[in-house]
């Protein structure tokens, strides 16, 4: 008499798969990010600091955006320089700050936060949209700390701006006035990325094409204003791209990364 066949304790192929998935399961939760929180007058400011090597690249986001907006740019830049992205007061996970939220206040707070985080100058300041005027004000206030400026489709001095309810928008006219009066420090290279967007869009309905045609002249005026401002900045360079709209850091991150790489290399020379 022979003993009846008994099923094995486990299916070997699936046991191998289970072992592989156990390794994956153990590895994945370890991939976290560590944020730095610094205190400014008792308020928390969230920062993400990564990379090594000077000058320190500091990212200033557009209106209302958290530091994650630099998610496609910061990891690449961190491979060749120390980088700092942060949430301005009241946005992302940073506590709200006292009014007025104009360029001068924000630049002062940024410098304090950088010092508190141990990020020493010189800084390459990268400002997108409303972050553009903020970094210009910073450069005017602390000329000795700035190695170069990269302005990513910045809010234009000539834009018809209206006050909004948000603290930063309420102070926007003041911020623009402060940016206008802030001269770019001598010898500081400036790269300005102008992103008017593609001439032709796929998937566009007639309504969208019409509205874009109406905005084309407005956008051209903005580009002319950039050129006029850069003409007064020694060493200013204009990079114009039609491969991206206003969100260059998401739509064409390689352009921003290359611009930063260039100014960092120049700074090191």
């Amino acid at each position: 008499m022979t003993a009846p066949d008994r099923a094995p304790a486990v299916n070997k192929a699936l046991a191998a798969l289970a072992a592989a998935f156990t390794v994956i399961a153990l590895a994945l939760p370890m991939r976290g990010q560590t944020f730095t929180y610094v205190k400014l007058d008792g308020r928390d400011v969230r920062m993400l600091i990564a990379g090594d090597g000077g000058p320190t690249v500091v990212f200033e986001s557009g209106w209302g955006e958290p530091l994650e907006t630099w998610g496609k740019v910061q990891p690449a830049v961190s491979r060749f320089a120390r980088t700092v992205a942060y949430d301005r007061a009241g946005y992302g996970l940073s506590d709200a700050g006292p009014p007025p939220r104009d360029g001068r206040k924000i630049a002062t707070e940024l410098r304090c936060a950088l010092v508190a985080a141990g990020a020493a100058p010189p800084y390459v300041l990268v400002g997108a949209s409303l972050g553009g005027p903020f970094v210009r004000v910073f450069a005017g206030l602390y000329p000795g700390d700035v190695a170069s400026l990269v302005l990513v489709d910045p809010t234009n001095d000539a834009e018809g701006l209206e006050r909004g309810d948000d603290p930063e928008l309420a102070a926007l006219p003041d911020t623009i006035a402060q940016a206008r009066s802030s001269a770019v420090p001598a010898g500081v290279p400036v790269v300005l990325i102008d992103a008017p967007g593609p001439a032709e869009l796929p998937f566009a309905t007639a309504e969208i094409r019409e509205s874009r045609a109406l905005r084309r002249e407005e956008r051209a005026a903005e580009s002319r204003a950039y050129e006029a401002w850069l003409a007064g900045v020694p060493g200013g360079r204009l990079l114009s791209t039609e491969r991206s709209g206003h969100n260059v850091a998401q739509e064409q991150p390689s352009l921003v990364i290359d611009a930063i790489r260039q100014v960092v290399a120049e700074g090191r020379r």
Partner: protein
Amino acid sequence: MRGAPIALGWAIWRRHRGALVGIVVLNVISWLGHLSGAVGPLAGEPAMLDTLFAAISILTVFGALGYVETQEDGNIGTFPRRLFALPVSSFCLVAVPMLAGIACIELLYFAWAERLSHGGSTSPLFIGVLFASSMVFYQTALWTLARLGALRIVVVGVIAVAMFGIGFLPGMVAGEPSFWRTERGLAAIVSALALAAFVHAWRHVARLRSAGGVAPPPFAHLRARLTDALPGRRRGFSSAAAAQFWFEWQRTGMVLPLLVGGVLVLVIGPYSWFLRNDPGYLLPLVFWTLATPVFVAAPWGMAFGQSKPWTEDFSIPSFVATKPLSAQQLVATKIEVAAASAALSWLVVLGFLVVWLLSWADLTPLSRFAIQLWAFQGESVLAVYGIAALTVTVGVFLTFRLLIANLWIGMCSSSLVLVGSAIGLFAAVLTALQLDVYRLPEWLLADPRHVTPLAWGAALCLAAKHWLAARTWRAVAPGFLRSYLLAWGVGTACFVALSLVVWGIVRIYQPIDGRGAQSLAILVALLLMPLARVGLAPSVLAANRHRR
């Protein structure tokens, strides 16, 4: 008893008193919860516990007061024929259960209304009319469409969704609406239809009672000639498995596509037409169109796993049990039917979308969305089409997953396991509500460090799931395992790919531990396709195949 109607009412109460007392108990628990402060104040937002209890109570009332009786063959039957011998009129036989149903659902609604409605624009009276009419339509469908068998669930589902949609119509009209789109107008239409349904049910029962049998459907002669003319199956089946596939498809496979088609044509279709000039509704309606198969498959999947859906007899029918097919082949056939059902449902969705979007939709909002996606994907048109195709594929797999997840419970053919799983699900939902799980996203976003414990929880589940799968699949033939693993692998890869694409876009706007959250998204995606449970199905079927 003083009269036949009271005797009938008493019989209904005696038969369903357990369910009705249960509903009262839920109501009392909710009140006690409010009085003790455990559930929250009455004036605040509706508590999740109240919503859950009210939903259970409403479903119980509809389930109990459908007023049908199970026949000897195990199928949920039709109007109780034993009552035909009673010395009462057919009008009374039909009117009493309908009035009992209406009274119960109205009492239930008005008992819960205060706790569930806070300042909504829809009047309680209008909702009351909709509930009463729903009960009439529901009972009429069950009694008069007995020949459809389990497929009556399709009709009932469509009625439910249609009534739900009608409830929202008055609030969606901008400006001065016509009388027929106000609450009064709609209530008049629905009440008139309910009256017609009552008359139809009355005539139907009277005909059955006078041995007239079931009336031939309208145009029966024409339909028979048409059916004969259409190409039908004349040949024998190539194998027992092919015959079983055909049988399963007829019994359960076609339900989901029919239900999805019904919802799209009767609910989304009219909405898309009435709201065609309001571009703000396009994207939400497209979303609900794409979500329809998933939302319909979730409840239907619980019945799909059973050998005979919607019966009170959970044993495997001898007709199936004695087939020359192994338990694995029977399970494999069920899985193939689920796959075909999910695929066909999505074909229905895509067909509806093509007709709607190309015929009467204002595509501007969809166009803006596509342009934004195109810009974020490095201006690649191919990437946009790829994401669209991936979304649909994930939808197919999600629908498929919902159909097969409860297969092992159905194959147990045990009312104990089924009730146990239902109680387990109920307990899990209650625990989740008690722990305020709906606030999880808020909690997750409050502090980046909150991602880590969730990721570890998901990681433990992932490891446990796969080791359990290695155990449950140990006695299953390699051929079946290979076939299912292929489907599982493709489905899992699609879930992971879409989670990465979506996370790549969402992360820009969310202050969160980016890498940790990405890991969590991957782990959750890896958990979605069932593996261990499917491996369990053949063995439980083999053990219970001939048990009654």
